[in-house]
């Protein structure tokens, strides 16, 4: 059934070829501007808490892999608060299929362009930052990406569930999005203690890129990294957070009452 849903989505995408190029330009511009700003900044200030531009490029690439894979498969979970507000969420409840499955397969305009760009950029950044490509690297990277996807998924699922109670969660969505997209661009060590703990152990975005990058680049981290290989635990952290988020989602679904609109 999953395969069937994806076949339909692929066929839909192929119907809009011009759109593909437009969104590809859009994706390149978004990440291009972010990386160029980092590049220009580090051109003037060669060290950001001990990280140079090459290492920051690798940090960005790791985040981009997890983030774009999540967006490709699970982007529509972010729309749940909108469905709840508009009252269209109820139709998922009356159909005889798993609610989460239905939401994930809502037709949308998520192209694999961002993931393709992420893979290219990751390949480049790995070479550029002189990361040793050994069997540990080859084995660990897919698992870290999986962990990153699960972390992203867990947080968006929690926000979606919170919207069952507090219909309007725009502020929360903004804050979470900003933490995920902007705070992950820099080494977590530049933040104050509270924010470091938030990024590491509450909304564990640091496991998407910072801790794994600390491991691959042999960086030292003050305060948070208990062991150098902490970053390899990303899939475990992702799995735990996702399990918790899914349990919360089930509870939320049972309590869901709708907005009455």
């Amino acid at each position, binding site marked *: 059934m999953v395969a069937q849903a994806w076949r339909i989505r692929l066929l839909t995408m192929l119907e809009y070829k011009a759109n593909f190029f*437009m969104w590809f330009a859009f994706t390149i511009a*978004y990440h291009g501007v972010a990386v160029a700003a980092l590049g220009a900044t580090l051109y003037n200030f060669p060290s950001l808490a001990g990280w140079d531009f090459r290492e920051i490029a690798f940090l960005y690439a790791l985040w981009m892999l997890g983030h774009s894979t999540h967006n490709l498969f699970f982007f529509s979970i972010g729309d749940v608060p909108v469905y709840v507000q508009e009252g269209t969420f109820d139709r998922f409840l009356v159909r005889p299929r798993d609610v989460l499955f239905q939401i994930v397969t809502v037709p949308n305009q998520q192209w694999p362009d961002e993931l393709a760009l992420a893979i290219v950029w990751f390949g480049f950044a790995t070479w550029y930052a002189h990361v040793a490509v050994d069997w540990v690297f080859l084995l660990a990277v897919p698992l870290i990406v999986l962990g990153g996807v699960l972390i992203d998924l867990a947080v968006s699922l929690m926000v979606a569930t919170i919207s069952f109670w507090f219909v309007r969660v725009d502020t929360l969505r903004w804050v979470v999005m900003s933490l995920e997209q902007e705070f992950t661009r820099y080494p977590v060590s530049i933040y104050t203690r509270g924010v470091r703990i938030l990024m590491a152990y509450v909304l564990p975005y640091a496991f998407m890129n910072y801790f794994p990058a600390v491991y691959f680049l042999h960086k030292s981290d003050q305060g948070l990294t208990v062991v150098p290989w902490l970053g390899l635990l990303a899939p475990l952290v992702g799995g735990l957070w996702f399990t918790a988020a899914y349990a919360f989602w089930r509870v939320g679904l049972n309590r869901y009452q709708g907005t009455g609109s």
Partner: protein
Amino acid sequence: MLSEIGSLVLRVYLIRALWTALYAHNPAPPNLPLHAIITYSTVALLLSLIFEVDGTRQLREKLRLGTIATDLLKPISIPGFLFSDGLGMTLLHAMTVIPSLLIALLLVHVDRPATAGAAAAFLAAFALGYAVNFLLNFCMNCVAFWTLETFALQLVVRWLSDLLSGAIIPLAFFPGAFQSVLLHLPFAAVYSTPLLIYLGLLRGQQIGHALLEQAAWLLAFAAVAALAWNRGRDRVVVQGG
């Protein structure tokens, strides 16, 4: 409103954390000590609250939905209407700047304008920047006369102009020749010029030149906007009902 303030707090925090870390381990660039860059970035952020209000976006909607047809029958100037409407929206939005500034001041120290003269020149440069930004947005939305769907294009231009206008980082951070080009592009007229005047990095005659350059871009864009509007209006094709 609340979500804007929430995201603003995070951004101001990020400005402080990032620049503090950068200045801790690197020599400061000439003329730009830590308090100046924090002031620059925070004022740029507050300016973006105003500049990101795009009153001309309605034009795109009107073209998409076809309601432009009835507007064209009315005895009003549509560009004039969009400008006044945008100005109204901006003034309403400017109200959020005050609480935002107060919250920002809790997190970072923002320097006052370099001198009273700099403050006056900043206001003039800000007004000119506002007009250039309006015309730039207007031209972008006029593209909808030809292609109808312009959303992705507009975001691409918005991001590029954020980078090239000095909204994210000062243009002085770009390498030599590229920087001199950027300083004279219309994007710089929106953010960079008012901010450099605010910090006192442009002085005396330089201020006069910068304001003249902004005015020149204003006239150039006004001409392009008028041309785009006239050509576009003549070929309005209303799709569907």
